[in-house]
């Protein structure tokens, strides 16, 4: 429409809608504020690169190659043939970081999803209904918060671990411990989120529009999901983002202690297991590359979360 060749008249024709700025939707507002946050943009770009590395690298290197060990090639430093060197049983570290990245990203996303599902459900129920249910759930939440998460994870990893059968998913075989790790990280991470959601529900349910919804006979589940939840979405999105970073770090901790995902399935965490046993020999490549990748991922996700926190904050409405 602004194409000058289309209108012969020198006066630019404006449609009525263009005369005033249309109101911005929440998504547009968020994006406008988000893109001013340079670090968050960097984090987002970095995450794209990391996902491309893990999932694009799959096309170049096969999983058999990543799990193929050649004991003649144990602990070889980086070379042209093995860019990141080889590990303690002669597997190519570059190939393993690619496949390990997939697992680490999957663990991060699914554990955070589980965390959000549990945190939102428990927080919403406690906040909406209040009373006995609320105090029961909040006592339980506080009980979990009163033990450092790593301790709970260690006990639970031992409890649910043991000899699990491998699982086959989408034509690929994974160690059964993968599901255990996702489950226990999700199961121990939700209390913080539950408290946030609960406090959101406590304040939002007192608003007049909730009273109006109730007066018009809206079913309770609709009030919870369509009226209150969308209004408390900002802290949930931020918590979920940071939950991904947290889950990736926790997986690395647990795997580092030898209680995590079992080989041959590679994760960035379990590649580090035992690496410190070889640190005396100066085999830095065993831990440097997986460690750097964990650091980069967690850093990017934290930047992203930081940007989202600023962008979604309803108090900063300036565009």
């Amino acid at each position, binding site marked *: 429409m602004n194409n000058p060749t289309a209108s012969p008249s020198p006066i630019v024709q404006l449609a009525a809608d263009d005369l005033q700025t249309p109101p911005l939707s929440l998504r547009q507002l968020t994006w406008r504020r988000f893109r001013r946050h340079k*670090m968050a943009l960097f984090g987002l770009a970095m995450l794209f690169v990391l996902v491309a590395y893990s999932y694009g690298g799959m096309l170049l290197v096969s999983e058999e190659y990543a799990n193929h060990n050649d004991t003649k090639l144990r602990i070889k430093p980086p070379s042209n043939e093995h860019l990141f060197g080889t590990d303690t049983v002669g597997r190519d570290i570059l190939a393993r970081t690619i496949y390990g990245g997939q697992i680490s990203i999957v663990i991060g996303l699914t554990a955070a999803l589980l965390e959000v599902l549990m945190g939102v459900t428990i927080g919403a129920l406690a906040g909406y209904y209040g009373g006995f249910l609320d105090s029961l759930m909040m*006592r*339980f939440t*506080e*009980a*979990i918060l*009163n*033990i*450092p998460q*790593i*301790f709970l994870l*260690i*006990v*639970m990893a*031992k*409890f649910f671990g043991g000899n699990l059968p491998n699982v086959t998913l989408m034509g690929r075989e994974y160690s059964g411990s993968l599901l255990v790790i996702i489950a226990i990280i999700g199961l121990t991470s939700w209390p913080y989120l539950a408290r946030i959601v609960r406090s959101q529900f406590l304040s939002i349910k007192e608003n007049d529009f909730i009273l109006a919804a109730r007066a018009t006979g809206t079913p309770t589940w609709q009030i919870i999901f369509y009226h209150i939840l969308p209004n408390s979405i900002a802290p949930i999105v931020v918590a979920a983002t940071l939950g991904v*970073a947290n889950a990736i*770090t926790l997986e*690395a*901790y647990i795997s*580092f*202690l030898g209680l995590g995902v079992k080989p041959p399935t590679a994760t960035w965490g379990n590649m*580090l297991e035992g*690496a*410190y046993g070889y*640190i*005396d020999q*100066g085999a*830095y490549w065993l*831990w*440097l590359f997986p*460690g*750097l990748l*964990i*650091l980069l991922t*967690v*850093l990017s996700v*934290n*930047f992203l979360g930081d940007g989202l926190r600023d962008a979604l904050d309803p108090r900063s409405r300036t565009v």
Partner: protein
Amino acid sequence: MIRYIVQRILQAIPLLFVLSLVLFVLMKNVGDPLATMGGRRVTRAADRERLSRQLGLDQPVILQYVYWLIGNDWAKVDMDGDGVAETPGTRQGVLRGDFGVSLTNRGMPVVKVISERIPNTLVLMLTAEAAIILGALLIGIYSALHQYSWVDNLATAFSFVGYSMPIFFIALVSIYLLGVYPKQAGLPYLPWVGMFDPKEGKTFEQVALHTILPVLSIAMISFAAYSRYVRSTMLEVMSQDYIRTARAKGLPRPQVVFIHALKNAALPLVTVVGLDLPLLLGGAVVTERIFAWPGMGRLFLDGVSDGDTPLVMGIMMLIAIAIVTFQIITDITYAWLDPRIRYE
């Protein structure tokens, strides 16, 4: 105030109760404490049966929990392991202060096993905490006073990296750069295994030397968050009216910064430190593992892998109680330091 404290303590009781029950049930399925009891030989089936009767491990989990909680001196236990319970029990139970005996440490009382390790962890953690607070105050105040200077920008970048860094990664990097690499190059290096060199003995110098690398790793991680915190509270306080007044009446700058501003800016730090201290008691499990440091974290890991329920329960309860206690102490200190705060 007293009402508030009593209320908090009463709230903590069901909490600890729930926690202990869940953990106890989890622990029962975690490992086999009998597996290591035969020394290097495999425990024989008959011995295994006798031992599990003597230790009461053949009882239902709930009964074992009850014995752990309130003792078994009101019931009969099977001391000679023949399947008949005839001897009265001797345990007093946690509620009466008896944490039982460790299953794997040759029947030593849990309290004794733990209290042998606590000083080791405290050496590490208190040094680290002191380094963190001192460093965070220095950098935080400097950053706030020179906002957007290169030191401030560097500290910001560094704190983001530190905040995202898993502790084992920084530990491995520092071991490599300050320990392994100089050692291979024939330069003086820092030790990274254990608390002291067995050849030198447990002298102050040795322990101090061995503390440097683990403390560095722990401090790097938490330092980031703390210095950011100091910076933001300091920035907030420096823009207050009373600071302008102090400046306007011509007070020397150090006095304004350290007497007027820091006092109020450091207040929120009390909360952070108070809530973090008990977590340190648990020890950075991972740090102690990497540096082979004989502290609580290592004890916990060993206890979990041996299925030593009384020991693990003792450590967990100690940490949980420490956390609750420090929460209450933090609240009280905060109210004492800041008269604007009132607890009903």
